[in-house]
């Protein structure tokens, strides 16, 4: 346990400089009195966060788990029904379809968001002329927010009056009357392009902050040794950027799993329910069908799935403790 915490607390070895503290220094940390005080300090630092999470997340989550074990309707009396909701869930074709669709959507957008974000971060991490302007331009879509932009995009995807058909029609890539939002393939394409445009800015900011933390002389040393751009990137930047990459990817994947606004506004899950992601399924069950208990069961299932996938991502992207010291 102690050793594990140490690993958590230790920064990536390559980022350190100067002589490592010798054994003598380390021993001092293990002085019992000091270690208890440190432990208490640590707990005190973390306490406010934990308190807020406990009150506003964990408790309602527990309550929600309880709701998922009942047939709680939006209004009216309810009864405990055990795991019935969950067994119904597994056989519900609509729920399964929404899960598969969400997985498909996540699979499509995750890599482009990361690659575009990374490329933009490379572009703007230096302090050259224009970098500030580029940074702002790339981040602006994220700043404005997905919901508002979904409405803007809705307007532009209209046949005849929208800019999408107008521009693409002039270039010759599409009919002037293509109806994007009522066709599964077209709607999915448009939404994926839209989301990459929206989300890559955040990836850029997250990666850029990490990139700027990498000391310059690492690159200079590589220059002296005659390294190519790609070699520098893959041997210096990427390994040191691991925590930031992890954060960016995890947030991106979770965001895709929880996607709702863009689908609700642009296609309402249509045509039919072909573009309905899981959270929209939950919304429909809870607030349209009034089956709050059943919907909550679906939500709990979703949380578990996301937790597993995020844990896997964490594991795969953890700071390697193999020393390069």
């Amino acid at each position, binding site marked *: 346990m102690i050793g594990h915490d140490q690993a958590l607390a230790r920064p990536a070895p390559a980022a350190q400089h100067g002589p490592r503290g010798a054994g003598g220094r380390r021993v001092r940390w293990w002085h019992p009195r000091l270690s208890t005080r440190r432990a208490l300090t640590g707990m005190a630092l973390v306490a406010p966060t*934990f308190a807020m999470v406990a009150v506003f997340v964990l408790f309602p989550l527990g309550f929600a788990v309880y709701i998922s074990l009942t047939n709680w309707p939006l209004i009216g009396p309810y009864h405990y029904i055990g795991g019935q909701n969950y067994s119904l869930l597994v056989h519900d074709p609509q729920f399964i379809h929404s899960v598969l669709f969400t997985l498909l959507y996540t699979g499509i957008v995750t890599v482009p968001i990361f690659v575009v974000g990374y490329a933009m971060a490379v572009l703007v991490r230096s302090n050259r002329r224009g970098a500030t302007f580029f940074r702002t331009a790339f981040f602006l879509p994220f700043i404005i927010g997905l919901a508002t932009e979904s409405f803007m995009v809705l307007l532009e995807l209209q046949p005849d009056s929208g800019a999408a058909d107008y521009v693409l029609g002039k270039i010759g890539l599409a009919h002037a009357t293509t109806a994007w939002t009522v066709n599964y393939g077209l709607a999915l394409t448009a939404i994926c392009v839209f989301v990459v445009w929206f989300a890559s800015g955040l990836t850029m900011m997250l990666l850029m902050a990490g990139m700027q933390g990498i000391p310059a002389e690492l690159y200079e040393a590589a220059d002296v040794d005659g390294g190519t751009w790609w070699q520098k990137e893959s041997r210096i930047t990427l390994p040191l950027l691991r925590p930031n990459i992890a954060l960016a990817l995890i947030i991106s994947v979770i965001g895709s799993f929880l996607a709702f606004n863009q689908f609700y506004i642009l296609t309402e899950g249509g045509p039919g329910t072909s573009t309905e992601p899981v959270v929209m399924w939950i919304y429909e069950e809870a607030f349209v069908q009034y089956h709050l208990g059943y919907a909550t069961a679906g939500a709990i299932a979703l949380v578990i799935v996301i937790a597993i996938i995020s844990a896997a991502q964490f594991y795969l992207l953890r700071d390697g403790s193999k020393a390069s010291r």
Partner: protein
Amino acid sequence: MKLLSGRIFTGVAAVLLLAAAGCSSSGSSSPAPASASFGVNATGTVQFWARTVSKTLAQKLVTEFNATHPNLKVNLRLTSINDDVTSLATSIRAGDPPDVVGLNDIDMPTFTRNGSFMNLTSQINKLPYKSALSPGHIGLATYNGQLYGVPYWADLSVLWYNKTLFKQAGLNPDDPPTTYAQILSDAQAINKLGHGINGFTFAGDCQGCLGFTVQPGIWADGTHLTNGDITSQSANIAGNTALESALTLYRNIWSQKLVPDNDRTDDGTTWGQDFAAGKIGIMPGGYGQLVDLVKPSQLGTEFMDTPLPGTNGGYSTFDGGDDFAIPSAAKNPSGAWEFIQWVMQTQQQDQYPALGATPVRTDVLTPSFSAKNPEDAVALKALAKGYAPVTLVYDQMFNQAGGPWFQMFTTAVYDGNMSLALQQGQSGLTRLLQQAAS
């Protein structure tokens, strides 16, 4: 860590108990307000939740009421679109509902059958104009023969048409269509004008809008899409010739390209704007919808309405709008009832047309009313023949993109496969009704 989490969990358990107490089920029926002083000279404040779509009306009414009632104040809260039912239901669960709510009338059945609202039957029976109240609204507020609400305002569907375009196409602007055949031929004539003009328009991706405007024709033909009352309903889609006739009309309109192309993807967000811009000959829509979109001077001169007809005549309308209801746990039900009664007085009802609403009493349709508000008079006349489906599955059936109504419409109108459409509609609605009954 242990100390901290211990304290937290104690607090958490306390809240849990509190919440559980607050949200335990209460299936008992609500007490009927029987006293003579109910709704007379009430004092205090009244929490009134109205839907944002009735904003202009609600704000005007509340301001006037507060100005004329020194001892009773109404506090208005406008609930956001799509959130009305949820916020009301959650507030009832939390034990803190408003005193009076203006609820979308088709959502009334969800609440009337579990004691959420006060039983107002005895109070309503005392109203002198009881028989003039909108039958559709009253029907939706009824459960087991008891009344749990009264009409608040009416949002009715009518057939709007562009008199200027009628004249240009050589049609008589004072002789609007009264049958499906006439709608089709008039639309064809106007469509020939070209130059970006179309004969007809509808929100082709907006299932709720279509439910609002297509169903009245079916009702005018004397039939509905469901049989039976809320406790045991069945689908009446297969073999429904009126429905087939209505869908055929829209199929013809679509396949003959009498509508703009982007009608196909209009999910309601731009509904009516092309008509308001003077580019469309005929548009089934709401009365209030157009009042929002055009200048008052254009009503009656450029744009006029007529009741939505059936296949060969007759007419009906969708009795949309809101009902007033008083939640059982309301803190000031007497004040709420005083406010409600005041709103239903003729003096207030007369103000409705200018605010984009239609009155809820047919006895308000006097010659002077018709003279002052000819367009709303058309709607009000249709109110008496209006209807609104009383069913638990209205939202699931009509307002969902994946619901049977829209699927049926799409298959019939865009794919042109009428028999498959009716089949899908019948099985879809049957399934929904079975689920709701279980």
